[in-house]
Structures are given as structure tokens and as C-alpha cells.
């Protein structure tokens, strides 16, 4: 009997004491505030509301001194501003790292390999049904400067085939202060893209490429 208890403790020991889960947080921000859906933001000369923000983080890898220490267990992670639990990416083990590398969007192989479950489920509203392909980054809302119907803008950034491949790679060198917190600074996109000019983007196109080229700029370590 004693032996059995010993074996039991031996088996569950590492689970309860030795291991610590590691969480990375991707926090969508608007200027200094955490993003709130449908809140009115005054931004320069513009009055803005974000109705929807979703974004794929894929192929997440952790580096220390330029060498790979961990590959995230999840193939693709969908961040959705309507559910803050999606801001967390958790790994089942603990390790040290000083750099994150990941893709914004879904790679071309995944795009042509049929149907997936989980975050890549086409029912998540991030898949184009009329023309196969994932939407990599989706930001919808209203802007007082947007000439679209009811001032609405639709930034649905996707496309995996050249010349409209919109997947973008990010590598973030992290300092020690808050290595597990990343901001997605959405206001930055309104500085880079003029919403009065580019407001309906819903297919792989030049406009999608223009926006995708700015997406890396949004990802910042918490200062």
C-alpha cells in the first residue's frame, strides 16, 4: 500500500509542483486604453468605433539568445475582441525566452489543406466562402471620416496567393520588464492607413496588401 502511495505521489508530483504554465497575453489597445468594442474613441480629427476585431496569430515560436526554445502547441490562435479569454495563449510548460516570432495570418499550406476544427473552423467568420481562403486580420467599425455607407469601414485582410499574399511575419525582441505581454496597438493602423480613402477591403487585393504591410507595426511589447 505504501508503495502505491509513493508511486502515486511520484507520478503526480511534477504536475503539481514542478510545472508552471506560461501565458502570453496579446492585449488589443486603442492608444493608452484596452480596446472596448463599440466604444467611441476620439482620435485626432476622427470619431472612431471598433465593432469587430479578430486576428490570427499562428506558428508562434519562443527564442532565447536566437535559438529556438519552444514551439507553441497550438497551430493557430484566433484573437477575438468579443472574448478576452482569447487574448491569452498558454503553454503547458515553463521556460525562459527573450524573443517571440509568429505570423499574423494563416499560412498558404493551411489555406489549401481543407477543413480544420478549433480556431481555424470556417464558422469563426474568418473564412471567405465564395473564394477559398482565411481572413488573416479583420477590423470593422465606423469612422466619421469614412465615406462608406453609415460611415462604416471593413478591413478584411486576407489572401495567400501571390501577388496578394497578406501573411506577415513578426519577430519581437523582448526586454525583461514584461516579457509576456504584447500590445496590439490598433490606433497605429489609423495613423498608417487613411480610412477616408481605404474603407472597403474584403478580398485579396492591392488595398489588402497596403494594410497588411502595416500590421507588424501594431505589435509591441508592453513598455
Amino acid at each position: 500500500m505504501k508503495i502505491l502511495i509513493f508511486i502515486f505521489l511520484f507520478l503526480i508530483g511534477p504536475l503539481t509542483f514542478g510545472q508552471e504554465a506560461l501565458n502570453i497575453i496579446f492585449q488589443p489597445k486603442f492608444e493608452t486604453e484596452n480596446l472596448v468594442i463599440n466604444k467611441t474613441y476620439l482620435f485626432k480629427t476622427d470619431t472612431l468605433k471598433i465593432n469587430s476585431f479578430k486576428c490570427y496569430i499562428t506558428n508562434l515560436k519562443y527564442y532565447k539568445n536566437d535559438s529556438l526554445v519552444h514551439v507553441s502547441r497550438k497551430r493557430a490562435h484566433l484573437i477575438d475582441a468579443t472574448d478576452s479569454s482569447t487574448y491569452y495563449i498558454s503553454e503547458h510548460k515553463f521556460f525562459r525566452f527573450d524573443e517571440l516570432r509568429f505570423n499574423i495570418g494563416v499560412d498558404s499550406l493551411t489555406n489549401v489543406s481543407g477543413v480544420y476544427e478549433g480556431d481555424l473552423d470556417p464558422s469563426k467568420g474568418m473564412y471567405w466562402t465564395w473564394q477559398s481562403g482565411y481572413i488573416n486580420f479583420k477590423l470593422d467599425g465606423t469612422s466619421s471620416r469614412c465615406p462608406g455607407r453609415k460611415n462604416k469601414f471593413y478591413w478584411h485582410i486576407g489572401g495567400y496567393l501571390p501577388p496578394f499574399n497578406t501573411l506577415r511575419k513578426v519577430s519581437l525582441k523582448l526586454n525583461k520588464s514584461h516579457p509576456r505581454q504584447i500590445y496590439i496597438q490598433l490606433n497605429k493602423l489609423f495613423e498608417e492607413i487613411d480610412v477616408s480613402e481605404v474603407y472597403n477591403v474584403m478580398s485579396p487585393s492591392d488595398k489588402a496588401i497596403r494594410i497588411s504591410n502595416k500590421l507588424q507595426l501594431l505589435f509591441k511589447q508592453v513598455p
Partner: protein
Amino acid sequence: MKKTKLLFTLSIFALLSFDIIKNTYFFNPPQYFPQPTYDFQKNPLDSNKIELGRLLFYDPLLSANNSVSCASCHSPFNAFAHTDHDLSHGIFDSIGNRNAPALFNLAWQKSFMWDGAVNHLDMQALAPITHPSEMGSTINDVIEKLNASEEYKTLFFIAFQDSIINTSKILKSLSQFQLTLVSASAKYDQVMLGKDVFSDQEKNGHQLFKKNCAICHTEPLFSNFKFETNALPVDPSLNDLGRYSITQNPEDKNKFKVPSLRNLSYTYPYMHDGRFATLKEAIDHYTSNIENSDRLSPALKLPIKLTSNEKVDLIAFLLTLNDKEFVFNKKHQFKKISIETKE
């Protein structure tokens, strides 16, 4: 009551253990067919999933107001095309802008729809389900309706050992059924297998076919599944530029996917917009109306010249591609599956 539940569960497990048979049983094309493109390892065929897919294929539940099923435009008796309709019909009497293509030998296709908009068979069904002029629904709506059906929940459990209905299970089941739609029993196939012979007329037609048509309509599937332009003038009422709308590459203007010529008699009218009602009109287009342009398929740069006798012979050969056994195969038709779940 508990006993019936137990019996029910046991019978499900019995079904599971006996009914799963190897892929080749359900998908066994002739030797002279090329390797299929579809990756069966990711979705191995089994009878429960095929039958579930068949049920979904014939179920108007997939449309917003439960009025239109896949089979509405892809009827088994028309080799899964929509005979006599130039353009596809959808929900609320809406009319689409293309001819519903025949469905068979899909395991060999790299892309789907006339313009190749869909890149994988598993993803194809999403397009008609959500298109406002086809089924006008959403995948979430379909999932909700299926989840409300005890019968479907049971069938999903039998097929996947899991009754949670999701996009992947729906699409994979639909793929499974459609993968079994193999047309390889036409007279042409019997001749290929040495079980039949062509008449002299068909033989001559076959030679003419090889000389004039086979570059694009490659044997034995009778398509190279590439995108080509065959000099059809753009219909101004549709303004459909085909492949160009997907790639936005000017080179792709007016290009459409080469359709298979199998089962021609069952799939009229012809071309992406169903503009030709008869085979003769289609052949006359190739012999008389091809205008040269930069993008014209290289295979059509040299004029196709056929005498009227040769046209008759060519048609005689093309008719050997009609696969009656496929078209009237009961395994492909609607079948009511009923499961007793009442207690």
C-alpha cells in the same frame, strides 16, 4: 427505458465495428485513371460518413428557408448537373450567374467552381450554402439546425463517435459522399477494359477527338482541369470574366475551367453560362466561331476543321462517354435513413 438506451448504445457500437470498411471498397477507380488529388488519409471513407454525407446532400435544411438542397441543382439523374437550366436556380426563386456543373470524379480536381474559386473539396459546400442566390444560409445556422435534430445527432455520433456537430464534420461528410461519385462505367470505359469495342463510326470519332479536343479534354477524365478561354464572347447581361475575378490577373480574363465531357447527354445545356442547348451547337462553336485573341487557348490557335460527317462521328464517340450505370446508381440517390430515437 434504461434498457432501450443500453440496447441503442450497443447497437451503435455494433454498427461501428462492422460497418467501417477500407477506403478502397468505396473508392475503386479503374487502373487507367490517374492518382487522385484528394488526400484520403485526412478523411478516410467509411460507410457511416458517406451515408451521412448523402443525407446532407439531399437535405434542404442546408438552405435558409429549408427549400433548396444540393441536389436541387445537382440531380443524380443529370449526372449531378441541372439539365435544361442555363443558369442555376436558388432560394427565393433567385437565379445565379453560372450553369450548375456536373458532379463526378471530384477526387481528381484541384479546384472547384467554373473559376476555381474554391481550392479544396472539403471547402466547396461552404460556397453554395452561404451564397445569397443559392442556399442563402450560414454555416452556423446549419449547425444550429442540425443540432436541433435528434436524428442527425445520432447519425453524427455513429459517423464520428462524437455527437458535437461542427463545420468540419459536416464538410467532411459531404466530401465523402461526393468522392464516391465516380463515373467510370461508360461504353468508353468498357472499351478501355477490353470488354467492348467501338463501332467504326465511334472509332473514327475517337481519332478526331484525339486530334482536335484531347489537349484540354484529356482522357480518361476528359478534362485537364485547367483554365482556358475558348473564345466565347462575354454575355453582357452577366459580364462574367471567369478566372480573372479570382486572380485579378488580366491574363485570366474569360478563362473558365475545362469541364469533363463525360455524361454529356445528361448535362445539357453547355458552357459556363449554359448558352448552348445542344452538343451540335457546342461543336459548331469550335469549328466556326473561334476568334483569335492573345489569351485564346493555344490548343485552339489552329482552326478545327470538321466535315459534317466527321461531326457526326465525333458526336458518336462523345456519346460513348455517357455513363448510364453512374447516372442511375441507386447508391447515389436519395435514401431516407430513419433511426428510432423515441422512447
